């Protein structure tokens, strides 16, 4: 019965068998025109999914890697950063920010409660943040 176990966890999720089958196809050269088309098409489709015309990146790694990549690309040591934390992964961002030398201020609510846009607005006014540094928006914590 092992093969019939139903994976009901918040990632990794069940993968559609059609997607799994695609992974077993012979590996193409990453510079071949055939593969480049598949990759380009996927980046375009990702833009549709994230409803953006801006850059999207396909990261070959965990969500945690993408979190660190985001912070690593915008933070200079000593930067003030406003972190929001309403769950396990919000706190994770605080730890990653510190590892990159940021000085995080944490807007925290008990787990299971929401942070309101006005709370963020007020918190941003309280301190002197560099205007060109983006604000991290974390929709929800999966833990």
């Amino acid at each position, binding site marked *: 019965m092992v093969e019939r176990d139903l994976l009901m966890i918040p990632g990794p999720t069940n993968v559609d068998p059609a997607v799994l089958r695609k992974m077993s196809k012979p590996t193409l050269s990453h510079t071949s025109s055939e*593969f480049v088309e598949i990759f380009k098409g996927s980046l375009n489709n990702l833009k549709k999914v994230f409803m953006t015309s801006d850059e999207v990146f396909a990261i070959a790694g965990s969500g945690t890697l993408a979190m660190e990549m985001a912070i690593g690309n915008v933070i200079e040591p000593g930067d003030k950063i406003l972190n929001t934390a309403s769950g396990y992964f919000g706190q994770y961002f605080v730890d990653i920010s510190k590892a990159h030398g940021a000085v995080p201020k944490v807007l925290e609510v008990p787990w299971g409660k929401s942070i309101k846009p006005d709370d963020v607005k007020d918190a941003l006014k309280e301190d002197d943040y560099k205007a060109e540094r983006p604000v991290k928006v974390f929709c929800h914590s999966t833990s």
Partner: protein
Amino acid sequence: MTIRLRDPSKYFATPPVNMIYALAEALKALLSEGLERRFRRHHILAEAFRDAMDSLGTKIVADRKCAADTVTAIHYPENIEDGAFRSQMKKRGIVVASTLGPLKGKGFRVGHMGNVSQNDVMSTIGAIEATLKDMGYHFTCGAGLAAAEEKILSL
């Protein structure tokens, strides 16, 4: 520095080719279902699952008004031990996750995102009911399933 990931026809790194096949196929499935339809499906299934947990008298971690449609974390009722609960669930063919950090051992998480179907959600609720009953928690058998079914039919 230019963003080299922008143009896959120019060498920037060696990407995981077969995983990009999978990405392409998954995106095709998602876009052919349509974003709005998928959001609605996730919302209906999440509401059904939350109604089921409420009907069993278990407490959901997140406030209903800000609860995510992709995952639900549930506090264990008294005297339900995490390891025993999840291993019984596994024996019934359903894998659920533990809660993390300060909630470790105090609850469990169920993901209802991606290509999860109505049947998957109903099976999960059924297994939760059987497991909780077996572990001595009192509730009306079938209450969770009835609530979920009602929600699925009403939406």
